[in-house]
């Protein structure tokens, strides 16, 4: 069996993620049915009218899975943004800081990474009075930031050792200028790959929170909540427990493939590898 080529990996990832982006954007302007309205019989099986059947209140399930795409993209983007802003800032600070501060930051990051992310996220979500999408995004973003910070620190330190940084320094460039002109462009490719992986983790984490009942309430329901609701009716309407899961897995695989494809594209030394 021939392994898929690297280009095929990237294309496959782009197609899967692109599909979710299109559906997510489409859900903003058009939905097949009113997501809160009773549009058919309760728990009806898939049909031409209802591609994924209806839920126990007679709401169209496909409509809700479409909204789920939008929610997942918002969660992934938001959490990665928060994680990136906090993480990259902290990581750069650590890379530039004095030995003592760097050691302290590095140790703190290691400890934070050891924390059970989901448990901390549960607590943060519980801390906000009403569970909202934002509290989940914030919690996951904070959890991701420690991982991003550690990676940024290691990457930046590696670049800082290179000769052209010394050259730039001797030619009178300020440290902020060096960060913007040399460090960020150098570490960006690796960070982007990591962000893509974190995106997938964030989507799964939010779905888990929602499944546990700590996510956003309907109608902004994520796939996790859809699955939780469908679990109760899995005997009469198994499609409800399958469709949101397939959507979730396809997005997670999509971003993973995308990350793999990007890594090979950015890093020529890996091109030959299996």
């Amino acid at each position, binding site marked *: *069996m021939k*392994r898929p080529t690297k280009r095929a990996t990237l294309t496959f990832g782009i197609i899967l993620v692109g599909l979710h982006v299109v559906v997510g954007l489409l859900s903003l302007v058009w939905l097949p049915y009113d997501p809160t309205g009773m549009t058919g019989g309760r728990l009806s099986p898939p049909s031409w009218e209802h591609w994924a059947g209806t839920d126990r209140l007679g709401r169209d399930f496909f409509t809700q899975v479409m909204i789920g795409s939008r929610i997942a993209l918002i969660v992934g983007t938001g959490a990665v943004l928060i994680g990136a802003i906090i993480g990259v800032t902290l990581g750069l600070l650590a890379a530039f800081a004095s030995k003592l501060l760097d050691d302290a930051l590095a*140790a*703190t990051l*290691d*400890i*934070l990474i*050891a*924390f*059970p992310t*989901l*448990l*901390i996220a*549960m*607590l*943060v979500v*519980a*801390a*906000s*009075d009403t569970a909202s999408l934002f509290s989940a995004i914030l919690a996951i973003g904070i959890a991701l930031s420690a991982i991003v910070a550690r990676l940024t620190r290691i990457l930046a330190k590696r670049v800082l050792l290179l000769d052209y940084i010394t050259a730039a320094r001797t030619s009178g460039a300020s440290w902020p200028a060096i960060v913007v002109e040399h460090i960020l462009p150098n570490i960006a490719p690796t960070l982007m790959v990591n962000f893509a992986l974190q995106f*997938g983790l964030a989507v*799964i984490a939010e*779905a*888990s929170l929602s*499944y*546990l*009942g*700590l996510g956003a309430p309907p109608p902004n329901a994520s796939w*996790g909540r859809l*699955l939780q609701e*469908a*679990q109760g009716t*899995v*005997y009469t309407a*198994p499609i409800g*427990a*399958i469709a949101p*899961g397939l959507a*979730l*897995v396809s997005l*997670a*695989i999509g971003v*993973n493939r995308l990350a793999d494809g990007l890594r090979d594209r950015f890093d020529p030394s890996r091109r030959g590898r*299996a």
Partner: protein
Amino acid sequence: MLTYLLRRLVILILSLFLAAVVLFVLLRLLPGDPANALLGVGATAEQIEAARAQIGSDQPLIVQFGSFIGNLARFDLGASFVSRAGVLEEIGNRMSVTLPLTIIGFLLAIAIALPLGIVAAVKSHRWYGAAISIVSQLGIAIPVFWLGILLVTVFAINLRIFPSGGFPLKGWANFGEAATAMVLPALTVALVIAASLIRYVRAATLDVLGSDYIRTARVLGASFPEALVRHGIRNGAVPVVSILGIELATTFLGAVVVEKVYALPGLGSMLLLAIQQRDYPNVQGVLFISTLLVLLIGFAADLLQRFIDPRLRGRRSEP
């Protein structure tokens, strides 16, 4: 080795302290006074005062923090606001579900991942070698709770082989029923962990296969399996052991979610219930003990790794 042990022990204690600080800060961020959880809606001002004094939430923050840390250090986790039961005792009861689930799931995951990961590497040019890799890629994209729902649908609802959830009231005293109740949850956790473990085992095996020492052993006349067993296992084990620590922690957290799928009365359901009921001592206790376990697992994995790999012993710590 001893210096390393001491260093690592200091880090462990610092980590625990930091975990306690995070817990304290987050719990103070919770809306409203914890005392409210003790009282009904129509509580008078005096009752609220009394409740606050009872919990200590009328004290200055620094005093609260001091007694919080002091209590944790003595493993005094207090009593539930709702049931009045001792938190540590309740956690102990719940562990009789969560711990077996974690351990069985973890061992099962290793039993699945080791052979499959090695086959995926050794036979990477065959269709089944590649198929194992692809399936394991798929596995890491599947959330543990969805896999649980799927397994329930197939094995409990359609085939009716195993119960769809629940745990006997008498617990392990009713061994047969308790064991059958464990099968699907353990399998769920195991499959998800195995999927990610296979990738590490495969990568470690590929490294070993491409190494010079295996080639040398072959040149010296050892058969391929012989070279692999004599030289490959110890070398390949080093990266796998370090990842096993992380995976065991992940298994434990996965078990917490899986308990919800199968309605098991473990630590996860205790935490969820406590969050819903704003039962602060329980929330705090479960989170503290969980973090403690995760940190201890990391500690043990680091030590084990040093033990297996003599090359690491001279080094102070990772860069």
